[in-house]
């Protein structure tokens, strides 16, 4: 057993808001070992070549969430990303950048105030009258703890948030980390503010219905929190709790059941009509252009699944919610 090494070219993003108008890159060629992670290289560059290179870091083993950056556009925790893995993925040319260029303050450090504001917005704490001198703990079964689905291990690193395309294009959106946090408490049997919290993350433009289901968050998370799974669970909670507000997104979700129950397959036109209601007028140009090229089956040609009875029977026996 010995230390393997590889030669890697690093291009490191540099910018100082105090001085620079535009960012620039510095290049370093270094031999790296199979034990080294990205943070080791940042430290070597700072300590051996350029003392002014700035980045956040603390725990160096993936638990404090400080050192999030992007390597070749992949959001990583610098202290948990093995260089050999990156070389295998991207080759020996690695570009090290801040999580978000738009929010950079200096080198790899960004201003995360939007991230923290959204963390705050979901009331990220257990809401309960706290017994300050309890003789016994709350009894919570292992099964009930499991329902939190490890969402409590989110370390607020921001990898998901700054990888989320909804955030990139809609600054109101709460983002995956805040949703995972909202879920962490909504799923905790000890919390007394489930409904209140669900209402916060139900807001149009900001809330869970604007998730575009790209799975970037699940991919970017260094702790396997799987935020989109929590977003789906939050969606489910609205229907389970019977508090889903009728809006285009909830009607759209329900319309799937409606359609499958009727045809097995989707009745696309009916579904859009049901979800959009009067707003369906917005969809007319699309519909017309589709009609022109034969993309909309006529109602009398609506395809149906074979053995539709079986599907209907299963929907009857297996449905767990009503809307």
């Amino acid at each position, binding site marked *: 057993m010995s*230390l393997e090494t590889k030669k890697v070219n690093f291009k490191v993003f540099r910018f100082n808001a105090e001085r620079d108008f535009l960012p620039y890159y510095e290049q370093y060629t270094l031999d790296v070992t*199979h034990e080294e992670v990205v943070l080791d290289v940042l430290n070597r560059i*700072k300590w051996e070549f350029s*003392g002014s290179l700035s980045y956040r870091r603390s725990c160096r083993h993936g638990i404090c969430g*400080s050192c999030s950056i992007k390597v070749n556009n992949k959001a990583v925790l610098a202290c948990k990303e093995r260089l050999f893995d990156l070389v295998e993925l991207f080759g020996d040319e690695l570009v090290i950048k801040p999580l978000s260029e738009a929010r950079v303050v200096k080198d790899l450090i960004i201003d995360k105030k939007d991230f923290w504001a959204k963390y705050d917005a979901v009331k990220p*704490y257990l809401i309960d009258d706290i017994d300050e001198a309890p003789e016994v703990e709350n009894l919570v079964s292992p099964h009930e703890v499991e329902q939190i689905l490890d969402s409590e291990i989110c370390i607020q690193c921001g990898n998901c948030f700054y990888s989320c395309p909804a955030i990139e294009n809609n600054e109101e959106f709460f983002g995956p980390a805040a949703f995972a946090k909202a879920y962490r408490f909504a799923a905790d049997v000890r919390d007394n503010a489930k409904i209140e919290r669900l209402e916060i993350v139900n807001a149009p433009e900001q809330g869970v219905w604007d998730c575009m289901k790209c799975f970037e968050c699940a991919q970017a998370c260094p702790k396997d929190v799987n935020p989109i799974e929590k977003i789906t669970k939050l969606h489910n909670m609205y229907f389970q709790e019977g508090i889903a507000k009728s809006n285009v997104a909830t009607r759209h979700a329900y319309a799937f059941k409606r359609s499958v129950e009727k045809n097995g397959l989707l009745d696309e036109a009916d579904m859009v009509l049901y979800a959009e209601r009067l707003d369906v007028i917005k969809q007319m140009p699309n519909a017309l252009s589709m009609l022109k090229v034969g993309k909309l089956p006529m109602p009398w040609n609506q395809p149906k699944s074979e053995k539709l009875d079986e599907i209907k029977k299963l929907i009857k026996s297996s449905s767990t919610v009503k809307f």
Partner: protein
Amino acid sequence: MSIPIYTYDAVIVGAGLAGNAAARELQKAGKKVAVITKLHPLRSHSGAAQGGINAAFSAKDSEELHMYDTIKGSDYLADQDAVAFMCNEAPKTIRWAERMGAVFSRTADGKIAQRPFGGQSEPRACYAKDRTGLTLLQTSYEQAHREGVLFFDEWYAADIIYKNGKISGVVAFNIRNMDKAIFNANAVMFATGGYARTYKINSNAHANTGDGLSIVARHGLPLEDMEFVQFHPSGLSGSGILISEAARGEGGKLLNSLGERFMSKYAPNAMELASRDVVARAIIEEIRQGRGVGPRKDAVYIDLTHLGAEKIMERLPELRDLAITFLGLDMIKEPILISATAHYSMGGIPVDIDGHVRKDNESFVEGFYAAGECACVSVHGANRLGANSVLEALLFGRHVGQSMAKDLDRGIALRPASLEDAQNMLDEMRFVLENNGTERVPELRTLLQESMTENAGVFRSEETLKKELVILDELEARYKNIRIEDKSKIFNTEMQEAIELGHMLDYARFIVDGALRRQESRGAHFREDFPARDDEKFLNHTMAYRDANGKIVSYPREVVLGRFEVKARAY
């Protein structure tokens, strides 16, 4: 230049478990409180604690037994009144953390689950998988945040305002932009964490540079028991990153290059679950005798493969992940490489049970408090037991917060601050930014860390310690000749690292000096030239301060004994 002066009832430095818990109590008591931290609170190193937090509440366990284990583990240097207080309050404290939202693992009947840990008679470590510290840190911050505590995150506390036996605030700068501020306060609490970062192989975060200790020492105030640094038996080879004691608690076996389960030689009864200092020395001894393994032969194996994938995934998922990341080894399939790593600071700022900082053996500093790893109460004595550190931080953090609120109610005068109070900080910043020498900070720091590991590490002797004192003199002289490249005001982390090195150099001397004077072996402090414990001469705490000439002067403080008789310690 003008520096704003903010006024608070209480200012806390550090936002780990101790700082957050204290801040919440003060806020709830209606005090105006601010917390200064050089990280975001959720990035604090308390979050890295893996294995558990002790409380005696299982049927077969008792507070008494917890005390006994803690005192025995401490090699009888812990103050027994403080230990009794901690062990009695532990069950309530942990249940309180649970009530605030901590996500503990549970037993089948819904209670907080507990696991065995080294040096403990009963399974006593309450745990949240292998990320106990994370859920506790989050919970303490969340509830402090919920109460509306004001946090100054990414602010660097550079100095205290201390005159005539009284403290009146903290001087700090904003790491983001170098804005400076004076936090004038009736009461100040330090919760600044430990100092193991002064060693090359250590388990600590980059942030754990122990600044708080030397800030105190620079004012001529004493530090206590600084020679006691705990080396954890299981750091990952190379990086020193911690593999929790849970790995041994769950049944991990230590093996040398001959495949021998060598703990049978060192602790035939407790085996791998002997006290940390015993296991750490056994590992280093095996390596020194040429029975090390791994690419550098600087490690031994810990074998967990017999636990099976399911148990490892359920109880130790985080640890498995760490070994894969930093060694490329999967503990489900193969043994992993570990060695002793500098982990925990038993010594620190001397305080009484209520957190009052001692000025000397007779008196206290008015308005000054400390809790958590930076403090020496002392509940760990010469060696801390696993799962007692998060307990200390949370329990004493909260208790000291309450004690501050009480003292504030009784009345602590506010001595108004003035701009001159910022002078030390300004001088320090100017020196680091403007000094135009030839020495580089990273190089000096590496020399410090390597030499401390070499000369003041798991094994020490008069020879190595004297050598280290010479090295420290040299490094101190070279530090005066440093130069940094970064002159900017925004996130000048190079300046920060230089200031931190200054602190490390200052308190390293206390570690070495204390180790040199203590001509015995006790707990984590092992002198090869004095391998036995010497209760006659050294059953006392080391109090040390820096005199006006920068020389360290020390004097003993009596250990508070009590119901547990001082005995030989064997596992």
